[in-house]
């Protein structure tokens, strides 16, 4: 007989091994007891944060040409959406990128990017089919743009405060038109043809200001030129016959064809002149708007060049249709290579090179010429979750803002209706807008007024203000009060020596907190703490707006 009592059976070994393995595995799970296992919500927040960073701090890819210029045939070359102006300006968004990003369609690629696939690949990323909603609120213009679905009860979320860069533009109005109207466009003889040119000096634009947030860069953002009130200059019909583009690069002028995608707008139309123009002149023109897409400027590779935009106007007698010779907007002597007046065979060197009879309008950083780029406040929100909730088709506006109160102080009895302290008189000198402004001067002075906002929320406070203060420590303030004037909140102060202390009016606009709305005691005030004669402040165009409940 064999005695096997001292031998462990194989069964025992197997069972004990299984027990030990399970025991070890359970012990290894104990540290996990100290961790809150909420992986899905952390994941949504992380995805929302990542998308917020990409949109607010990154310009997207590709950068040149910029992704927002890509139409549907090229959209597969768009790797990543981004709304930032550049990688050096986080949280400052480009208006062009914003407009393109929020052009959404579910079916038609000619309208915009296709939701949700195009957005998921280029903003959300990952293989998991997240649902999302991305919104941008313009706090100054009370406008909300969004793409995505309705929000569920629980979702990952991030909110970013941003600035949106407005585009620059130039308005050539009746005053400029009148001061630059001549009887001839050529070599001394009366002519019905008038040539007006503009200059975009890229070397100066990119060299004088290097901060992309304030730089005018036609290859990165759209520039707009409005030429208005042309009919006021002549009794004849004004026809826009042609627009030519010339590039000066390393001393050599070259003609750049103007594509139909960059044709002008006339007479306030929101549709460009057709491709049949200029073969068929645009007739009876009162105003012309030139809007050049950044992609067109970028394609010229003109970063170190000058760009001349040359417009040709023909005057026709409104009755007979015959050429009409008279004064009109005119700043260019359009010469051919023989030095003869000839727009159709214009020679850049003869026309613009050291020609004192050609003085193009300079699109530059002079605020008298060009309204400079301005930054306005906005809020970008990203929400991420899983599961479909249906596309959000709500209005892209937070509600129209109505004007509750306005005063341009043009009335002869201005500032009637305001409570006046000190010296505050109606002023028709410089500066004013319209017929007059209000001038506060010489001694502590203020004007104030109670404006009921009952029934309204989202209160906005806009005004024009400026000063000429000659003594340190003196200033003007624009203020509002929610308690009838017991306490005041300052929204804008101009001190002696500030840029706005230039004897000119400057526009300001603010959206006020909730306490300004639904308030019968809402009050506004403009106050100067002058104590010396000669210190002056100016107020004009006061507007209080709100959204009806």
């Amino acid at each position, binding site marked *: 007989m064999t005695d096997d009592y001292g031998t462990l059976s*194989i*069964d*025992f070994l197997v*069972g*004990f*091994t*299984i*027990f030990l393995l*399970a*025991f070890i595995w*359970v012990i290894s*799970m104990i540290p*996990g*007891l*100290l*961790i*809150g*296992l*909420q992986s899905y919500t*952390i994941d949504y*927040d992380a995805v929302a*944060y990542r998308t917020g960073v990409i949109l607010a701090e990154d310009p997207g890819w590709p950068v040149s040409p910029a992704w927002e210029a890509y139409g549907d045939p090229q959209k597969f070359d768009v790797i990543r959406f981004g709304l930032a102006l550049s990688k050096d300006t986080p*949280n400052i968004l480009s208006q062009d990128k914003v407009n393109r990003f929020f052009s959404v369609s579910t079916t038609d690629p000619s309208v915009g990017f296709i939701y949700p696939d195009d957005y998921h690949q280029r903003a959300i990323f990952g293989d998991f089919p997240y649902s999302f909603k991305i919104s*941008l*609120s313009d*706090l100054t213009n009370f406008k*909300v743009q969004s793409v995505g679905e309705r929000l569920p009860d629980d979702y990952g979320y*991030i*909110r*970013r*405060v*941003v*600035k949106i860069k407005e585009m620059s533009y130039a308005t050539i109005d009746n005053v400029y038109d009148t001061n630059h109207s001549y009887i001839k466009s050529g070599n001394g003889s009366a002519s019905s043809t008038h040539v007006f040119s503009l200059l975009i000096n890229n070397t100066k634009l990119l060299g004088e200001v290097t*901060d992309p947030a*304030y730089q005018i860069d036609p290859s990165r953002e759209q520039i707009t030129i409005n030429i208005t009130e042309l009919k006021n200059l002549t009794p004849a019909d004004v026809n826009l016959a042609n627009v030519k583009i010339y590039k000066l690069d390393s001393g050599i002028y070259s003609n750049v064809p103007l594509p139909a995608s960059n044709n002008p707008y006339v007479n306030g139309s929101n549709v460009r002149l057709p491709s049949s123009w200029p073969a068929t002149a645009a007739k009876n023109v009162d105003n012309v708007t030139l809007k050049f897409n950044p992609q067109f400027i970028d394609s010229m590779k003109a970063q170190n060049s000058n760009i001349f935009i040359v417009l040709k106007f023909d005057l026709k007698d409104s009755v007979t249709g015959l050429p009409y010779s008279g004064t009109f907007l005119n700043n260019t002597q359009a010469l051919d290579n023989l030095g003869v007046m000839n727009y159709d065979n214009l020679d850049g060197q003869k026309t613009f090179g050291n020609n004192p009879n050609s003085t193009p309008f300079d699109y530059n950083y002079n605020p008298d010429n060009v309204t400079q*780029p*301005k*930054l306005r*406040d906005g*809020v*970008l*929100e990203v929400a991420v979750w899983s599961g479909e909730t249906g596309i959000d088709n709500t209005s892209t506006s*937070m509600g129209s803002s109505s004007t509750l109160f306005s005063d341009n102080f043009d009335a002869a009895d201005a500032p009637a209706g305001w409570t006046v302290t000190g010296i505050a008189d109606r002023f028709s000198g410089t500066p004013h807008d319209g017929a007059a402004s209000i001038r506060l001067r010489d001694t502590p002075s203020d004007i104030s007024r109670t404006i009921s906002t009952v029934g309204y929320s989202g209160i906005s406070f806009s005004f024009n203000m400026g000063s000429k203060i000659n003594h*340190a*420590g003196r200033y003007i303030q624009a*203020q*509002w009060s929610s308690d009838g004037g017991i306490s005041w*909140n*300052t*929204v*804008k*102060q101009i*001190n002696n020596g*500030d*840029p*706005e202390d230039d004897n000119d009016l400057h526009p300001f606009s*603010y*959206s*006020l*907190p909730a306490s300004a709305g639904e308030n019968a005691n809402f009050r506004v005030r403009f106050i100067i703490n002058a104590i010396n004669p000669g210190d002056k402040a100016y107020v004009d165009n006061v507007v209080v707006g709100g959204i009806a409940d």
Partner: protein
Amino acid sequence: MCFPEKGCKKTGTRRRAVQENTAGQLYTIEGIAAGLIMIMTAYLVVNATSVYTAGDTHISDMQLEQLGSDALNIMDTPETMNAQSELRMIINTSPPDGGAFNTIFLNLINGKAGTGNDHIQYTANYTCRTDPGDSIESHLISYSRPMTGGEHAVRVTKWVTVKPSFPFCGTTNTNRTVLAEVLIWRD
């Protein structure tokens, strides 16, 4: 053993009694059963447990910090090229323009794209080094409501360069860089 020469008869096939010892199989079955019970218990316990540790609050803290940091950066970004930033102008007055800071900051951090606003409160001050004296001073800018001490606040800061035209943080009006500091919390 039976040997025929000793007289025992071999009457047939004599089978030796075989005893099968199955006791060892119980160990295997017990082992499997014990393992399964332990695993199932551990799974139920872990799934039922949700301990809210400090690690879980970091998401909401991060969101609030990002918002506050963005708001201060935006306030320190001038609206136009030659303008002063709002934050600089607020600190560069004597006393600091708390009303303007309150209006602008609350508008930025509580504004939302949808309807309604958030309910975030704050208290803000700036810290500077005096000249002369070289000591640290802290000055209140503004607050939305007093802190009671029970709020879970996060801190955001921004260095701001001011160019005062009056004695600032001491008795001189030299250019100075101060630290604007804001505590923000959600009601």
